[in-house]
């Protein structure tokens, strides 16, 4: 026990010196578990996040828009894979993570349980949802676990395109016909609050936050990140003449940041528990795609095996 204590103290010391932890280094079991939970949850969010956007690929309003959306959704798949690969360095298998997702044992970002009803939603998702994700991910580039940090660096570079293309869509609609502007405003109205809740519960109600900060997995609190996001996004909405759906929103001269209204946490927890508009649909679709793709994985295995045998026979001959 005393030995364990001293190992943990050494570990904390090492982190306090701003050093990174790499896969084979000693780490407390709880640090490993926290990371597996967080990274796999992050990976699942990227993968499930393909669904609300993929929903609009066949209906994109122009070839340009379609090409961009395809590239973006492909990026999300890539991001999921970088993250599964980072999680695997901690000793969990991807198959196990996918089972956890499909059985509901693992969560994904609650935001993807909302539907994308119009084309303006594709803009709002890029601008607000990816915008909020970037806020969090930029912080995570400095996370203490090496493979997670490196995955975040690559992801952040790519996410920037996602947010800009989303804002461009919303901007075009906000400057379009009266109906288009109304669609853009409606999308902002529906995505604003769920986006703010992406940062998670308030610091006082976030029991794991303190330990994650101490281990430098997280570097900023949920509320700090949320405030930064609000301060950045409000002027972007004003610039294109849209209104943030919050009557309590106002600039606080003294603090040099925006005051904003209270979030509906009952809704947040209800969606996490599975009662959002699309929870069942998202998982059902993931399971269906996974099952319908089974023959491809099997065929690839069979082909690899055949090639191996052929090679073996030719070397033997």
């Amino acid at each position: 026990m005393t030995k364990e204590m001293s190992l943990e103290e050494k570990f904390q010391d090492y982190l306090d010196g701003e050093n990174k932890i790499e896969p084979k280094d000693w780490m407390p079991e709880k640090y490993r578990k926290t990371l597996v939970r967080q990274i796999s949850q992050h990976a699942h969010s990227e993968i499930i996040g393909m669904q609300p956007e993929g929903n609009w690929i066949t209906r994109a309003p122009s070839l340009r828009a379609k090409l961009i959306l395809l590239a973006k959704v492909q990026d999300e798949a890539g991001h999921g894979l970088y993250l599964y690969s980072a999680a695997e360095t901690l000793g969990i298998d991807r198959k196990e993570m996918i089972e956890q997702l499909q059985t509901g044992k693992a969560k994904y970002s609650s935001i993807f349980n909302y539907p994308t009803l119009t084309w303006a939603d594709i803009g709002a998702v890029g601008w607000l949802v990816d915008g909020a994700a970037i806020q969090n991910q930029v912080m995570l580039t400095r996370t203490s676990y090496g493979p997670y940090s490196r995955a975040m660096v690559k992801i952040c570079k790519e996410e920037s395109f996602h947010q800009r293309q989303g804002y461009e869509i919303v901007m075009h609609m906000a400057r379009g016909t009266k109906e288009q502007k109304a669609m853009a405003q409606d999308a902002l109205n529906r995505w604003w609050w769920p986006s703010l809740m992406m940062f998670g519960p308030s610091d006082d109600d976030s029991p794991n936050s303190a330990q994650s900060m101490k281990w430098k997995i997280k570097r900023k609190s949920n509320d700090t990140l949320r405030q930064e996001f609000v301060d950045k996004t409000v002027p972007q909405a004003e610039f294109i003449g849209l209104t943030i759906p919050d009557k309590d929103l106002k600039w606080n001269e003294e603090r040099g940041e925006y005051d904003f209204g209270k979030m509906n946490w009952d809704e947040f927890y209800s969606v996490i528990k599975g009662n959002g508009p699309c929870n069942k649909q998202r998982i059902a679709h993931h399971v269906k795609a996974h099952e319908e793709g089974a023959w491809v994985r099997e065929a690839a295995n069979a082909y690899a095996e055949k090639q191996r045998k052929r090679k073996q026979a030719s070397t033997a001959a």
Partner: protein
Amino acid sequence: MKITLHSMSKDNWKIWEVFIRSKNGLNHKHVGSLHAPDAEMAIKNARDVYTRRSEGVSIWVVPSDAVTASSPDEKEPLFTPSDDKVYRHPTFYEIPDEVGHM
């Protein structure tokens, strides 16, 4: 669906470590890992996963289990002996300024 159980036990592809040369003249650098049934597919997957934005001109894939790594526990015996050999560094030698750059 009958196919399901079967597939769940079979989709565990091998893990490959991926190395990419960003341009000629530079080393291949480790970028991450991925799953693939064989080397050829690993290259194809690596191209899709790690080089969507012209990140590379050449890809290496190596089965993860083929990599032998030094243990973090050996860090001291492996790397500290070189710490006290300061004479291996050019700054150890005092050369008069008049000699010029050397």
